């Protein structure tokens, strides 16, 4: 295990600094939990209140796109997990390839999402004038769909930025000294995955078949 960590300013012991990043990131993830908690509360209300009409709207969601994207994102979580462990273990090459893989999978997620959005737009699934269902709980489902998925996609994009930065650090040659950064980035990426895993049944599995 790489013990030669770069000691940052306020810390006098490596042991405490090593706790600091995961603790800081986990605290931030707790805020993400409450952030998405807010929109899930809206979903819970709309589904409870909207009943059958809500389900009717949800049936239009493109389950194939959603399922494939779930698989893609879960796999990216796998590559990220391996990258993080390889960094900690001192295996640069593995770490580099796995980070690259995560980046590619994350990008594919966004591309697939883009195709799905195109299909949604074609089928008039944006609430407002020309919306397939008119006013009602179905419109609420789609309001949730757009707000939640766009917010999630923004998180994916930020995650990709973090991964790109890690790759850049790797190119510079000192990724192994930044094991805590890799750990923080990985934690964030896994959270983005979890959010999607929770959204998946809420968006795509309502009222099937």
């Amino acid at each position, binding site marked *: 295990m790489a013990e030669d960590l770069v000691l940052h300013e306020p810390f006098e012991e490596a042991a405490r600094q090593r706790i600091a990043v995961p603790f800081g990131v986990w605290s931030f993830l707790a805020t993400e939990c*409450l952030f998405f908690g*807010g*929109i899930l509360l*809206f979903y819970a209300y709309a589904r409870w209140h*909207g009943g059958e009409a809500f389900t009717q709207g949800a049936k239009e969601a493109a389950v194939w796109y959603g399922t494939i994207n779930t698989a893609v994102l879960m796999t990216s979580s796998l590559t990220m997990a391996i990258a993080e462990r390889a960094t900690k273990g001192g295996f640069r090459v593995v770490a580099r390839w796995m980070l690259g893989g995560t980046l590619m999978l994350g990008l594919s997620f966004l591309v697939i999402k883009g195709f799905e959005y195109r299909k949604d737009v074609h089928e008039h699934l944006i609430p407002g004038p020309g919306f397939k269902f008119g006013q009602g709980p179905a419109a*609420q489902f789609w*309001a949730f769909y*757009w*707000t939640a998925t766009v917010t999630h996609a923004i998180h994916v994009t930020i995650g990709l930025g973090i991964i790109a930065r890690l790759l850049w650090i790797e190119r510079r040659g000192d990724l192994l000294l930044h094991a805590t950064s890799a750990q923080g980035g990985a934690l964030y990426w896994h959270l983005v995955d979890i959010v999607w895993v929770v959204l998946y049944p809420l968006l795509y599995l309502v009222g099937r078949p």
Partner: protein
Amino acid sequence: MNSDPTRGGIPERGAEPPSYLREGTTVRSWLTTTDHKRIGILYALAITFFFALGAVAAALIRAELVTPSGDFLTNDEYNQAFTLHGIVMVWFFLVPSIPATLGNFLLPMMIGAKDVAFPRLNLMSWYVFMAGGLLALFAILAGGVDTGWTFYTPFSTLYSNSHVLLAALGVFVVGFSSIATGVNFIATVHLLRARGMTWMRLPLFVWAMYTTSLVMVLATPVLAMSLLLVVAERAFGLPIFDPRSGGDPLLFQHLFWFYSHPAVYIMVLPAFGVVSEIITCEARRRIFGYQFMVYAMVVIAVIGFMVWGHHMFVSGQSAFASMVFSFLSFVIAVPSAIKVFNWTGTLYRGQIRFSAPMLYALGFIGLFTIGGLTGLFLASVPLDVHLTDTYFVVAHFHYIMVGGSVSAFFGGLHFWWPKITGRLYSERLAQFAAISMFFGFNFTFFPQFIMGTMGMPRRYHDYPPEFQPWHVMSSVGALVLGFGYLWPIFYLGWSLFRGERAPANPHGATGLEWQTRSPPPKDNFDRLLVVDQEPYLYHPKESTPDEVEQAHAKQKP
């Protein structure tokens, strides 16, 4: 420890020892600093600007209300003035006031650390704050917002013709600076305490910062989401709270108050911390019931999340929910009362110095008590039905937030001014400021309780003439209060350039921050610290009779 060898022995200029202020004096060195002390000062400058902006809006409101007819501002302008006042004062002044300035400066020093756990994140939080501030400013310059600081739907999303989006985005952005500060403080307290600084040896200010940070971290994201949903509905027409699609505007209120009630504690918990530091030092007493003070803050921080529905008693919320929220709101008064009781207990048989910080702190206790007790009126459902949206509510929360938090902020500013700047200010002039602020405040807001019970609604600039005497009283009081705020600029400004050099520990206080030079060196301390005693040892334990030796006294029936 109280006799300081450096007192009076420091030469004027020239041989000044190195301090954090001397580590680069260019603007660039300030804008790229990761020193928590400098970031505290950057925040102080920023919030002073926003405080002035919010104060101008308040002045406009009070000027308009002198006469019963709306002759100075139009309806729209009045709406914009109180919205601007609310948004700016809550998010750009009160929430960051004590934590981001005094907290940033003092928290690491009080626990014997070199800096906060994530110094670069700390600097970033300031830039995020400024970005949010610019967005809000831009909203004001573009023509203002008229929703009130609460952004209630459906008005904010479907009907308002003002710049709601910009303002909401500004508040959304500034929330992230709160979160960053909160995460940073929590990690700092957990990981960077000096050797021997156990949890029960932490100064109460540190506990206050810690509990405040918990609230910031756990409440702010929900505000972010509620504003995001407002943006989604307003900008993209997505029906979220829109009743025509089955949405419930009360859902917005639930989300909003899930943050905004705890936000009151973000504003007042830091004040608790400041007041505890000042009172112990200026009464030369150990704090009465240290552990109860700590638990009270922790309980307030947690229960504070379960009372938000008291803002919704007349909104159509279910009677059951109102009952639960009302009950919990009464419960949370208990720890607040414990704190007031313990501060009073600390004063008992103390050697009280009525210095300026102490006057502010004593003012805090009185005003906070009035604010807290009137809060109980509002927590009771039947009374609240009568008082909702009247000036009684306005007076109540100003007693907590201005009478309480702002008094404490000014008290803390004076108390630590010598440490921060290395200069002393004129005690006499400062006492005058503290007293005028106290009286000005009461003249402004006490009449509002009375008009509130008589039925004067808030947010109207056109009112029946029988309320005029009260409004005139209030506006005249605001002049005095304004003087109380402006006056310190002169003597503190003068002290900055001409003030006598401050010794390391001018008040003879016990905190670690006083055990280093004034102003402190860049790394805060010249030596490694080891803590081996509890805080506030202002008098030896056995020096007073048992009944005064409160914390350890045997209970007598």
